[in-house]
């Protein structure tokens, strides 16, 4: 019984994908759309935070410390009387700036290195893999900590460092995808037609490597949001008084016994965001999985 179920379960998605693929692509499910909606709403809210009717995220009001939610302060105020909702939105700016920009840097450089290593193989491959292994041997937070401590705290520095640290992982993803693709017929055909290396890399391989890289990008965004908040929590992220989810959690921890929501609100928003990026990334990966595409 179980064996029948298992084989049936494997064949079914391929059929579904094939039949619906003819119309509008595979069905993505309600969870995917909720996750995507959350991301879009958050990005929009963070981008237009200045235009929204919230108090300043840095204005202190010592008479209204740790106030409960009210018409004036939708999510209450923190230990220094600052508006929590506004701090969450402006904190989203820091998280999303680092979360979106750093993986893009990693994607561009890691993708290029991976393509070159996987296509040319040989010494270049060994060199690139060795460099990637060296970077991977450092726990990412350690390197980020050391570099922020010396280069100074700013959003730009943090983005650059985290982007640099993400390069080896993207290199690996791009390299393994390229290795498999470089053996395929269409590459051999292009070479037989006299295509240059540049043409094969840009026109034949890049479009095919782009999909797994894009799926991985979404997961990397989630990881970078977490690392950003960790650095801010440790006091090495966005310089205060600028809000960040990590530093909000850090400040909220001091009053866990009297006002636990001050830590739980930013923590919950961060969890929802990370989960949303992971969910969308997982769906994109499943949809663009070359094994599944080959099967259907």
């Amino acid at each position, binding site marked *: 019984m*179980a*064996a029948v*179920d*298992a084989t049936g*379960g494997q064949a079914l998605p391929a059929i579904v994908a094939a039949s619906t693929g003819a119309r509008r692509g595979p069905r993505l499910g309600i969870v995917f759309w909720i996750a995507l909606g959350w991301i879009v709403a958050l990005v929009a809210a963070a981008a237009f935070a200045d235009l929204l009717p919230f108090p300043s995220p840095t204005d202190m009001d010592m008479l209204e410390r740790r106030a409960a939610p009210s018409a004036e302060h939708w999510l209450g105020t923190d230990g220094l009387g600052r508006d929590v909702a506004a701090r969450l939105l402006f904190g989203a700016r820091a998280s999303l700036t680092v979360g979106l920009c750093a993986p893009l840097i990693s994607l561009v450089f890691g993708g290029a290195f991976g393509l070159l290593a996987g296509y040319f193989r040989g010494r270049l491959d060994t060199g690139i893999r*060795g*460099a990637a*292994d*060296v*970077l991977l*041997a*450092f*726990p990412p*937070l*350690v*390197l980020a*900590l*050391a*570099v922020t*401590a*010396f*280069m100074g705290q700013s959003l730009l520095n943090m983005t650059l460092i985290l982007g640099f640290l993400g390069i080896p992982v993207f290199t690996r993803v791009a390299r393994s995808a390229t290795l498999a693709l470089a053996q395929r017929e269409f590459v051999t055909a292009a070479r037989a037609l006299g295509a240059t290396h540049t043409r094969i890399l840009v026109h034949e391989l890049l479009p095919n490597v782009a999909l797994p890289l894009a799926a991985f990008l979404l997961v990397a965004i*989630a990881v970078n949001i*977490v690392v950003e*908040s*960790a650095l801010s*929590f*440790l006091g*090495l992220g966005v310089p205060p008084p600028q809000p960040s989810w*990590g530093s909000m*959690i850090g400040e*909220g*921890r001091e009053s*866990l*016994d009297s006002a*636990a929501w001050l*830590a*739980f609100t930013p*923590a919950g928003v*961060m*969890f929802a965001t*990370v*989960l949303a990026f*992971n*969910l969308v990334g*997982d769906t994109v990966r499943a949809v663009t999985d070359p094994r599944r595409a080959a099967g259907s």
Partner: protein
Amino acid sequence: MIRLFARRLLYLLPVLFGVALLTFLIASLLPGDLATVLLGDQATPETLAALRRDLGLDQPIPLRFAHWLAQVLQGDLGRSFRTGQTVVAAIAERLPVSIELMLLAQLGALLVAVPLAIVCAVREGGRFDRFVTGLAFASLSVPSLLSAIVLIWLLAVRLSWLPATGYVPLDESAIGNLRCMALPALTLAMGEWPALMRVLRSDMISTLKEDYIALARAKGLKPARVLLVHALKPSSLTLVTVAGINIARLLGGALIVEAIFALPGVGRLLLGSVFNRDLVLLQGVVLFVGAAFVAVNLAVDMLYAVLDPRIRHGRG
């Protein structure tokens, strides 16, 4: 086996060298060298230059790197300029805390992950499997920062079962030590069980489809025996790798968790060296963490070869 070991080692030596080089470059190329840190902002250019000459900082970087590397190879990582303690002694003092935390966390994560994975693999696609797989996916999105906050709030603030922060040495009180290690270990374990569960579950599902499992069942062996004796060992290869990577990472101290719970491990040492701009200490700890990571990875590769004969005899 030995040839495989030699080949891996031969590849890892340049990686280790690269780790050392990068460590050195980070500390020497970034603005704010040891002389500026020691003398502060008020230093005149003349005193700075004099101190740099004394410390050998005026020499070209390749020469300084060679000098430093020669010292490191002799086991001398230098002295912290703040405490005067040697870097090796500082690491040796903190390492047991990080190792204990790592072991407890791994143990906790495996205790949750292995039974769940086995049950899920047996009832693949069932209600319990779908629930646990979904839970694991959601748990992967919970940063340790978040689970730490929730655990402190629940177990320390609300129920006051466990202390929220602080550290009691093992030789002072074993129970006190375990009590203060419980929350940090739990926090780490919560982040690790999903990955362990997922790899063991998927490996187990493919193992259970093998012919020899059907044969074992046909022979009338008890289902538990088939699962635990015949299926578990060949399914645990990826699990070993993932657990190994976790161990390698945690040897360098769980930065966030040690900071939240104020545990005096390697992570806190590193954090302190960053805040104090203690360059020599920072250099030494980062090099140790990187080298430990490389070494544990080598050990995991070897264990992998022991567990799977195909790797031992194949191309590897």
